């Protein structure tokens, strides 16, 4: 298990409410292989977020709806524990988790070599055990590590991070408080080798210039997190 606190580069600049620099990530730690039964798993803490991911598969699917003749099908379930938020969340999927499950599958898919496993399914189960802003990105980042831990062949390891606008400033990795009071949130996932973007949402108000700045900042954050993903795997499997 490794922990890193990114110090950021504009140390002299104005700080945020939690003391971070505008381009500074929250403390992050990732551990691979934390569950016994799952084929692959990962545990991630990112600021106050705690996320656990299990991967099963590639395995045979007996449901026709989830079979593709030429490739594997990615099934993703993003779920929040009832006790993960201030007011207890009722168990079971809601509209928010249905949408996040869908875009998480789409974000991870471009990295996975699906053609190797026709008619099979890869199940990705993301459990948010505690939520403090940025859980969808945390889930994607952890899921990549769990996929690698499960031995699923991938071209690259998808990594996700958000940038946004708070107090008229473009900042990296919004905390829960910043997300709530902020002006915009832009979650991004990338394939770090090519820099291509596999998840992109924007929620709030941004000029096109601000949007570009946020996108660039999020990509930069992704690259930093990517190193920690790799460390987590090295930590488990050696170099």
């Amino acid at each position, binding site marked *: 298990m490794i922990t890193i606190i990114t110090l950021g580069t504009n140390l002299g600049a104005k700080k945020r409410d939690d003391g971070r620099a505008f381009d500074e990530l929250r403390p992050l730690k990732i551990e691979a292989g934390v569950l016994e039964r799952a084929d692959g798993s990962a545990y991630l803490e990112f600021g106050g977020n705690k996320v656990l991911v299990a991967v099963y598969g590639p395995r045979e699917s007996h449901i026709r*709806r989830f079979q593709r003749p030429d490739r594997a099908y990615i099934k993703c379930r993003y779920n929040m524990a009832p006790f993960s938020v201030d007011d207890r969340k009722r168990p079971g999927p809601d*509209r*928010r988790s*249905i*949408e996040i*499950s*869908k*875009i998480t599958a*789409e974000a991870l*898919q*471009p990295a996975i070599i699906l053609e190797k496993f026709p008619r099979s399914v890869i199940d990705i189960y993301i459990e948010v055990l505690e939520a403090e802003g940025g859980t969808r990105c945390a889930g994607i980042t952890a899921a990549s590590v769990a996929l690698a831990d499960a031995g699923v062949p991938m071209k690259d390891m998808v990594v996700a991070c958000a940038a946004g606008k708070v107090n008229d400033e473009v900042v990296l990795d919004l905390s829960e408080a910043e997300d709530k009071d902020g002006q*915009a949130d*832009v979650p991004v996932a*990338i*394939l770090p080798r*090519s*820099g*291509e*973007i*596999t*998840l*992109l*949402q*924007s*929620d*709030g*108000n*941004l*000029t*096109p210039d601000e*949007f*570009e700045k946020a*996108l*660039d900042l999020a*990509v930069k954050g992704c690259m930093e997190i990517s190193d920690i993903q790799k460390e987590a795997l090295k930590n488990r499997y050696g170099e």
Partner: protein
Amino acid sequence: MNVIPEITRKSITNLINNMERADGRALDEYREISVETGVISKAEGSARVKIGNTQILVGTKPQIGTPFEDTPNVGVLMTNSELLPMAAPNFEPGPPDERSVELARVADRCVRESEMVDLEKLCIIEGKKVWMVFIDLHILDYDGNLFDAAVLGIVAALLDTKIPQATVEDDEIIINREIMEPLPIRDKALMNTFVKIGDQIVLDPNLEEEEILSARLSIGITASGKICAMQKGGDDPFTKEEIMKAVKIAEGKTKDLMKYLENPTTP
């Protein structure tokens, strides 16, 4: 799951790589668009929108409800969408599936984040009673690009919406349906959807194009030029350049689209 023959896929892709489309449009051109409002008398606001053969009916219904605890003085917009089984041979009856949920949530964010409706003016008694405006998307005919049609329909329906006067006397709310007032409108936003086919970025995909897209990007832009919503979909990635090019095109196209809101047909 719709399966499009490999030969059709190739011919559409080849055309687009040559900057052409099967229906003769330019890559950044919308299909024919029509907007009618006031089409449902029992709805406080309504609009029927067509983009090509895609057809959506939107109705609004204001109800008095309780505000959320963390926003006690703010009204609520609630967007629901039904991909009716009538709209396509493979749509099934039942609760909204993930496509329908995504459509409703993205359209809802686009409208909400544009701050189009001044929701504070929909507060009746702080912390107790506010107007909740239910926005129902009824997808009648599906020929691609539901996102842009949905947002266009919602915005047209909200502009058409009248809510009854609500006054408070002795802690009682008096609803006067004789006096119907328009919603407090501040801004407007519309959405532009691009898809990647072959090497190109193409605006307003029809159904055939949607079925072979490799990636999708929907961009919501306000009349005042702000990006208020964005949603990527599809199985393949975008490069940053492709995204910024789409943003550029969207800025112009939104202004064109706004014109359809100015003089909607009334039945």
